[in-house]
């Protein structure tokens, strides 16, 4: 009965973690290389690949171990959470992990079920309880569950009644067998587009590697065909080696593989991982994304997708709670053309509800006009709001004083909650004044004519204490007005229309008094319809239609679900950045559309295309396709199960729309829409943002899932990849962080491949001059440390703090986002450019050194240099070129960049001096002894190094300058614009006030 979510225990951590890690193809590859080096006679020592591999594995293991430790802690808190268990008629408190099948459990209100349960009885007389199943299926609605009738009365016998048990139930499944655990899908690994490109590049490099090894092996055997070349007198093989000529070709191939294996950089994985892990801290640290009110900042749940934030093409957003505050506010009501706004309403009502049947309203006597009285009675009576507490007035008061009245009302519509709350607040204001004057009137609720989306209204029939029968109706203006026969229709209509334009949700209220005869008739009709076996819905509708007529209009209400702060601005920016924003909501179309207008997703000028019919004919869809001038599509029902053809058409239409609003979406349908777009031809990158449990499925489905950490619980935030406090933070998240991280990681990936081409290709070329004997060009220390220390930190730090353009510019100009759209920095031409640059540089290094060494000396004492000096020269040029190339790419030189770039170069020099400065006792060779110093003591070596670095960097600089001048991208224009601006300020400052104060001001501005 223990719920476990962790992967490792203390004992199996090392073997299991190692196994998991080596299942990654890259790690496995490096392990193979390492083993090959151990087994066969290879040119480089096993240390060269073993050490980096060990480093990578250790870092990853520590990271995973830490994460698993956190999971252990979380599991402990679940498994040790206290549970009330009924044993022999008494309640025993125990840990949830101790629960066994068959135990009787007592669960109080607002508690979480510890396991799957069978409801025996509840504190309600009728044995019902209300349960939300958000964590199971994402539906947040309250569901009624009935206790098993046989056990309904057990509560008295077992004397748990006195303990106010809400639910008492038998454990059916516990621990890992619970529905929850079975349903619990571990978040599937989301892989970013960058990672996919990276893997594609890796495959290319693997092919290059293998072909290099094959070419060299073939050439080796062609070259050493004659014995005098294979085994000249000065260089015999050992006897053992001579005998193994059969497998020799294969080991030669492997040896070449080992020699060139550094072209696939081991350290790239660890650097990328570190970049993502450390980089995500900057998101969490961002104070612009910190919400004072909630006291939370952005939260990063997975760091794997930082760069994906810069690639988003489709944004799927939830409406309620995401675009809007999900905080309905009663704005005004209009009774008989008189407009009342809150706190001025002279009406006091109170809701007292005992179960769903009885409703009584306490009206204060301060109401004078009859219609107003009726209006507020209607509001109080005509709803489906449930009060959760038993004690009426006290609890409501308490609730209000605690400042969160919403937790006491549950309803199908947030509008109703707002209305009832408003009424409740009226009582409060009333009771403060003249409590004593309250007159209680009791109403008996006779019938409820439920809301449906066709009628768009609901009604209740009540019997007042005086024996009057009244029908109250509340609904959308369009469905009420045609049925009104009296009342101040014109004034109310004008008000309603005005409210609608302001984006408020409006409801009209009307009533009709029924005579006892009429009431009997009505009852009859309703009962007939309800009991009908065939066409029940249709007959009910007919009956409703007959009953709901001849209304007297009472008035209208206006409720506002306020847009979140800067929601409109954010949406506008996202659209400018080239993203398509889709709103997926469970709401009604009208409300959703109003929000869309308010948030500038739809404009007054946009043409709207509605796909609202349930079964739209394919032909008509085809027609729609031809008429693409319409830009906005709303879809009420997605026939997800429809034919594939239908889907494609929907896809095609909606992809051509600038904004799409999908209404009445179930959680799963939201996910289906996301899936549909994801699977379309271009495979666009999708982002889903939502705040509630109903958005979880879509958040999990999209490439990037963002949860809003509103006051509405954390289901979405917990399942998301990133969580932000407010919708407006999405702007900075995508436009700034996404853009920057994409640029950073793109450079990181390209640069890594580049620097390893530069590193390994000279070694490949050297084989042509050493008889294809797999002689390494560089010393073992250089081979090992090149990726680990000489060139690792500059790129890591670059990829953490590079800002090719200022944050302000990125925020100000969303169109810059288009510059990095569609993975533009990791496309094949760019990759080819980097690879060619690497090859070019490698040739420069190698042949430059070759011509310098060509059968001559370059010392002033006539002494000669050997092969290790040759390699060291190439390596020195290599390290400097590769580091300076990064320096040229750096646009944002903080002291950290300076420190790391110049520090790495210095470290290389110091290391080389040290490495060659001592006879190292633990080494069995001293080939590097004084090599570096001897090289530096010669003038031409210096000149040669400077020359080769210059040649290597020249083409890239020229390319950059030409591209910037002739075909500047928007980003580059923005960069230059900024510089000019800065220069301008500095110049002004210098000219006008040549004082230190002005200078300081300039620096601050700069």
């Amino acid at each position, binding site marked *: 009965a223990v*719920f476990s979510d962790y992967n490792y225990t203390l004992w199996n951590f090392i073997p299991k973690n190692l196994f998991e890690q080596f299942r990654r193809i890259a790690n496995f590859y490096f392990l193979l290389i390492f083993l090959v080096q151990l087994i066969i006679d290879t040119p480089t020592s096993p240390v060269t690949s073993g050490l980096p591999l060990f480093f990578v594995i250790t870092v990853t293991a520590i990271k995973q171990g830490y994460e698993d430790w956190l999971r252990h802690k979380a599991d402990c808190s*679940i498994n040790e959470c206290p549970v009330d268990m009924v044993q022999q008629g008494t309640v025993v408190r125990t840990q949830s992990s101790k629960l066994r099948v068959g135990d009787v459990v007592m669960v109080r209100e*607002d508690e979480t079920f510890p396991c799957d349960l069978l409801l025996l009885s509840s504190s309600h007389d009728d044995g019902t309880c209300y349960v939300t199943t*958000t*964590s199971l299926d994402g539906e947040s*609605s*309250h*569901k009624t569950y009935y206790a098993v009738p046989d056990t309904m009365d057990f509560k008295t016998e077992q004397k748990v009644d006195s303990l106010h048990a809400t639910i008492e139930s038998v454990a059916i499944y516990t621990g890992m067998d619970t529905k929850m655990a079975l349903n619990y899908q571990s978040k599937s690994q989301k892989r970013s587009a960058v990672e996919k490109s990276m893997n594609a590049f890796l495959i290319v490099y693997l092919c290059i590697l293998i072909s290099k090894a094959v070419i060299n092996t073939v050439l080796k055997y062609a070259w050493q065909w004659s014995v*005098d070349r294979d085994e000249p*007198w*000065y*260089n015999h093989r050992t006897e053992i080696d001579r005998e193994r000529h059969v497998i020799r070709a294969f080991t030669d191939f492997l040896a070449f593989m080992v020699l060139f294996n550094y072209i696939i950089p081991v350290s790239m994985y660890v650097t990328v991982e570190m970049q993502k892990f450390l980089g995500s801290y900057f998101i969490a*640290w*961002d*104070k612009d994304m910190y919400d004072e009110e909630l*006291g939370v*900042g952005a*939260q990063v749940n997975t760091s794997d997708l930082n760069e994906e934030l810069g690639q988003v093409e489709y944004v799927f957003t939830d409406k309620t709670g995401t675009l809007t505050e*999900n905080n*309905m506010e009663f704005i005004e009501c209009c009774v008989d053309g008189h407009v009342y706004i809150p706190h001025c309403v002279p009406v006091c009502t109170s809701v007292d509800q005992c179960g769903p049947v009885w409703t009584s309203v306490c009206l204060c006597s301060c109401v004078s006009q009859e219609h107003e009285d009726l209006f507020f009675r209607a509001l109080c009576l005509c709803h489906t709001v*449930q009060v959760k507490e038993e004690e009426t007035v006290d609890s409501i008061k308490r609730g209000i004083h605690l400042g969160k009245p919403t937790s006491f009302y549950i309803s*199908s*519509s947030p509008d109703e909650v707002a209305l009832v709350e408003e009424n409740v607040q009226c009582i409060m204001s009333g009771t403060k004044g003249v409590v004593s004057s309250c007159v209680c009137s009791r109403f008996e609720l006779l019938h409820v004519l439920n809301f449906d989306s066709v009628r768009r209204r609901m009604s209740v029939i009540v019997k007042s204490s005086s024996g009057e029968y009244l029908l109250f109706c509340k609904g959308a203006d369009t469905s009420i007005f045609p049925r009104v026969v009296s009342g101040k229709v014109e004034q109310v209509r004008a008000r309603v229309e005005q409210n609608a334009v302001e984006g408020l949700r409006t409801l009209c209220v009307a009533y009709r008094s029924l005579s006892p005869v009429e009431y009997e008739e009505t009852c009859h009709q309703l009962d007939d319809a309800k009991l009908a076996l065939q066409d029940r819905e249709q007959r009910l509708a007919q009956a409703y239609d007959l009953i709901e007529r001849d209304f007297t209009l009472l008035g209208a209400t206006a409720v506002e679900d306020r847009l979140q702060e800067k929601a409109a601005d954010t949406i506008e920016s996202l659209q400018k950045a080239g993203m398509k924003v889709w709103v997926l909501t469970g709401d009604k179309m009208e409300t959703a559309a109003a929000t869309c207008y308010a948030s500038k997703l739809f404009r007054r000028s946009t043409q709207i295309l509605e796909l609202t019919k349930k079964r739209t004919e394919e032909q008509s869809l085809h027609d729609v396709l031809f008429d693409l001038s319409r830009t906005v599509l709303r879809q009420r029902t997605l026939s997800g199960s429809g034919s594939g053809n239908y889907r494609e058409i929907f896809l095609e239409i909606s992809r051509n729309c600038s904004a799409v609003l999908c209404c009445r979406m179930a959680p799963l349908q939201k996910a289906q829409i996301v899936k549909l777009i994801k699977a379309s031809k271009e495979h666009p990158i999708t982002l889903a943002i939502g705040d509630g*449990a*109903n958005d979880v499925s879509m958040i999990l489905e999209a490439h990037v899932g963002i949860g809003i950490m509103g006051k*509405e*619980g*954390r289901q*979405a935030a*917990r399942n998301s990849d990133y969580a932000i406090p407010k919708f407006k933070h999405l702007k900075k998240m995508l436009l700034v962080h996404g853009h920057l991280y994409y640029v950073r990681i793109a450079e990181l990936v390209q640069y890594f491949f580049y620097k390893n081409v530069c590193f390994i290709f000279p070694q490949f070329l050297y084989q042509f001059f050493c008889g294809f*004997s*797999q*002689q390494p060009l560089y010393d073992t220390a250089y081979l090992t440390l090149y990726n680990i220390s000489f060139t690792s930190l500059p790129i890591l730090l670059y990829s953490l703090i590079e800002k090719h353009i200022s*944050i302000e510019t990125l925020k100000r100009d969303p169109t810059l986002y288009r510059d990095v759209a569609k993975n533009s920095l990791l496309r094949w031409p760019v990759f080819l450019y980097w690879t060619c640059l690497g090859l070019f540089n490698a040739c420069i290094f190698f042949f430059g050194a*070759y*011509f310098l060494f060509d*059968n*001559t*000396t370059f010392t002033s004492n*006539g*002494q*000669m*240099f050997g*092969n290790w000096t040759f390699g060291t020269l190439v390596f020195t040029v290599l390290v400097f070129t590769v580091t300076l190339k990064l320096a040229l790419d750096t*646009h944002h030189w*903080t002291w950290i960049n300076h420190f790391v770039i110049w520090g790495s170069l210095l470290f290389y020099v110091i290391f080389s001096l040290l490495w060659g400065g001592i006879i190292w006792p633990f*080494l*069995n*060779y*001293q080939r590097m002894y004084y090599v570096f110093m001897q090289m530096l003591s010669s003038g031409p070596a210096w*000149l040669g190094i400077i*020359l080769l670095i*210059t040649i290597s960097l020249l083409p890239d*600089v020229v390319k950059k*300058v030409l591209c910037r*001048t*002739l075909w500047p991208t928007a980003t580059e224009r*923005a960069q*230059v614009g900024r510089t*000019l601006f800065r220069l301008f300020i500095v110049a002004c400052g210098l000219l006008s006030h040549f004082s230190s104060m002005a200078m300081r001001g300039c620096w601050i501005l700069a």
Partner: protein
Amino acid sequence: MMASNYNAKEEDGHQPAAIGHGGAGTVKNKKPDNTAFKQQRLPAWQPILTAGTVLPAFFVIGLIFIPIGIGLFVTSNNIQELEIDYTGVDMSSPCYNCSQSYSWNSTKPCLCSVPFFLDQPFESNVFMYYGLSNFYQNHRRYVKSRDDSQLNGDKASLTSPSKECEPYRTSDNKPIAPCGAIANSLFNDTLELYYIDPNGSRTAIPLVKKGIAWWTDKHVKFRNPGGNDNNLTVVFQGTSKPVNWRKSVYELDPSDPDNNGFINEDFIVWMRTAALPTFRKLYRIIHKKTNMTPTLPLGQYILEVTYNYPVRSFEGRKRMILSTISWMGGKNPFLGIAYITVGSVCFFLGIVLLIIHHKYGNRNHSADIPS
């Protein structure tokens, strides 16, 4: 009558991790620090490579590189160098016989003399090299076939050399000192130079064998076992000479104890494996005697070769090179030409960029300023 479609969101999502009621909700992030680092607002220098900024750099590079290149080129051209191939491939060549009748076991050295004429006097110190072609000193099997600790005077390695030395590790069950393929194939031709006076008499040119190896190699990296002062014959007892050597390591230069055994400079020079299959190694130095006369006056010379080293089997070549040395080493026009070329290219690119900058640059900038 319960609500069936509830849009307002629930207070607490019931996830297993949040069973402690409201526990997760109470965990509040601390407000992020407003430090420049955490807010990514560290003060920074933001250079941008535009035509305007790169232009001066190109001109400066051009202006610096071209003079350097010219200097290097002139220096390289002033260096005098003479190369004589004495392999003896041609029938006409004086060493033809020696190259044909070669045998490792012959006790009688084969001598040949190669006459040559110096049409220009070598003014400064002259460095004498031997050069080998098609000799793969950089072959992997060859490069690693040595034992550095043995060469450093380690007694344990002297008696049991490293396995890397195979198959040149032991002979007749005795460890080879110095072991390995490199040592085994030590270049053992002897070159002597004679000036032929106009009157016909031969004058031996004094060849200095000190200073041809790196100082650090000679004094630190290479050491005789048990120090350099001991009697080497005793020290090397129990070891065998390399298979292809005619004499033991302690007989390399019996005349000079500072140049014998492992610290023999010819040996050290050879042990530094060359980078490329065609290479030269410093053999002797001819010091300038007085300021008045050139080191090697123009005239007739004879190169006396004791022909021991076989290269015909792998189609190798043997050369003797005489060269003067400048501050930038031997004759190598590459560096000078490369500098001139790069300088000119930079200069040319500077001009091209200047044109482009004037034609297009202004257009871009004027469009940018309002933004």
